[in-house]
């Protein structure tokens, strides 16, 4: 069980409304990712759900029960912090056992659960070490271990991978996804990294300036962004956003084209441009093409592209894949 409902939830710090008003439904067993630029209120939203901040208005329900006034411990949620927040003076074993000890569980039962959690997280050999003697990835796993032993209704992750190096981040991403497959518990995950959001989420919630811009599955958001913000935020490299007369010809104020939805040719096409920087990723090559009129356009091409800086190319947008936005930045049908 782990159904979380937010109704008209708002948060003000003094005069500043960090979150004006949010409605959100999180189903049992879902992996939900809150994504948005830094300072958009996504972490605050998570802390409101956790009970670490008081809401200024609205109702938070967990499994249909009003949890708005409940203290964090009573909500049955577990949280993994960005800094891991391990207890430095306790061994890994005592760190993981801490929530169970606080719950007054029988010591033999605690030992059994800690061993089980350690086995799942490959921490068995490290149980008697202090957090200070572990690597970043191991500390992360201890923090997750401390969360899973409680068998919470839902896990809350606050940018858990941002302190890890790139290779480890990819590994931990997979481990967390596998954990979700194994436990089938609701998970709420906050990140500013849209790649993490795309790869892990069942449902992405795009947050901007305390408002929810769009909610949907990763591919829904990728294929049909509801507005300019989502269009620019989801996808890497970013969608090409073109304004001016070029967009007006298609009846929009701004038009958006993903790099893979532009045909590239050396002989003929709609736009003529010069290749600038090209990024070779092996499987793909991303070319930055300077086009007269629309300006700088990013185009995806195969990994074996032989084009070089300064080469002349022709670009043709795939009209069916084009996104069109009106003056308010909303997507047009």
């Amino acid at each position, binding site marked *: 069980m782990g159904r979380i409902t937010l109704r008209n939830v708002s948060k003000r710090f003094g005069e500043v409304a960090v979150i004006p008003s949010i409605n959100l439904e999180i189903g049992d067993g879902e992996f939900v990712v809150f994504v948005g630029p830094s300072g958009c209120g996504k972490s605050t939203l998570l802390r409101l759900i956790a009970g*670490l901040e008081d809401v200024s208005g609205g109702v938070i329900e967990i499994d249909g029960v009003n949890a708005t006034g409940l203290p964090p411990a009573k909500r049955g949620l577990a949280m993994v912090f960005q800094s891991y927040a391990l207890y430095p003076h*306790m061994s890994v074993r005592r760190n993981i056992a801490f929530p169970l000890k*606080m719950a007054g569980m029988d010591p033999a039962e605690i030992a059994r659960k800690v061993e089980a959690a350690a086995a799942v997280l490959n921490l068995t050999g490290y149980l008697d070490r202090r957090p200070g003697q572990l690597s970043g990835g191991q500390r992360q796993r201890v923090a997750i271990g401390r969360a899973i032993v409680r068998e919470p209704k839902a896990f809350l992750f606050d940018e858990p991978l941002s302190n890890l190096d790139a290779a480890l981040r990819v590994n931990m991403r997979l481990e967390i996804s596998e954990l979700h497959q194994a436990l089938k518990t609701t998970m709420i995950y906050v990140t500013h990294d849209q790649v993490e959001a795309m790869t892990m989420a069942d449902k992405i919630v795009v947050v901007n300036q305390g408002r929810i811009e769009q909610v949907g599955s990763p591919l829904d958001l990728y294929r049909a962004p509801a507005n300019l913000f989502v269009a620019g935020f989801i996808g890497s490299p970013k969608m090409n956003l073109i304004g001016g007369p070029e967009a007006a010809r298609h009846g929009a104020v701004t038009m958006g084209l993903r790099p893979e939805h532009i045909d590239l040719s050396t002989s003929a096409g709609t736009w003529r441009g010069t290749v600038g920087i090209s990024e070779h990723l092996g499987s793909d090559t991303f070319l930055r093409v300077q086009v007269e009129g629309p300006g700088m356009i990013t185009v995806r091409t195969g990994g074996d592209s032989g084009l070089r800086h300064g080469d002349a190319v022709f670009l043709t947008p795939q009209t069916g894949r084009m996104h069109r936005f009106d003056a308010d930045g909303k997507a047009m049908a």
Partner: protein
Amino acid sequence: MATQHSRTAARLMISPAVILLFLWMIVPLAMTLYFSFLRYNLLMPGMEEWAGFSNYRYFLTDPAFFTALRNTLVLVLGVLMITVTGGILLALLLDQPMWGQGIVRILVIAPFFVMPTVSALVWTNMFMNPVNGLFAHAAKAMGLQPYDFLAQSPLLSITLIVAWQWLPFATLILLTALQSLDSEQMEAAAMDGAGPLSRFVYITVPHLTRSITVVILIQTIFLLSVFAEILVTTNGGPGTASTTLTYLVYVQSMLQFDVGGGAAGGIVAVILANVVAIFLMRMIGRNLDA
């Protein structure tokens, strides 16, 4: 810069300071040691003669010595207990966000800036005096008999005065330690179901152990040599009820003019201080290792 040449040069250049500091320590110590083996009375100048260990024998068999030893330990332990527990509680209070925080913190630190003689005089005459003191007035206002603090329980009174002076120090050190506690750890503990008391016991206190160690070590060094407060308030009395080792050395050499005996007492005090220091380092010094 770690070549052989630069290291030699560095040693050469710091040597004047080191030598000066060394002499500063060793000359008085050596002279005290020398005097402690002399029959040296200020009333009979020029009559010094070798006395062997007799100064030590007289000092250590003096019934006042054991009282002084006990008083010293009671004073040090009493002040340590009051300042550490009081310091933790005050630091917890001062760590709460409140209006006028800056001014309140300065007020709390203020007693530390009052010199011992002055604070002892203020306490004796304005608070603990059985006729004019505020406590006496308060007792009379409630229809009670005023309590003569310095006559009835002199050691306790001095302990309170010294503790009042050292409480700000403990508070200050422990407050800075509290402020360095990661708030996410507290939040994690709250999510793990720890109530305020459990959070204090399992998170705050372990975090503070190192600072508490520092407070205990530094205070012990200074508390072993408390003198002005005793001289100004009770003069070690009534009888020897509030005489500490430091004060006994003063009595021996300056009131009984027995410099040799005083020097012997001084050496005994140095040895005892070192014994205490070794015990302290054994017991709590490992907290200082990271």
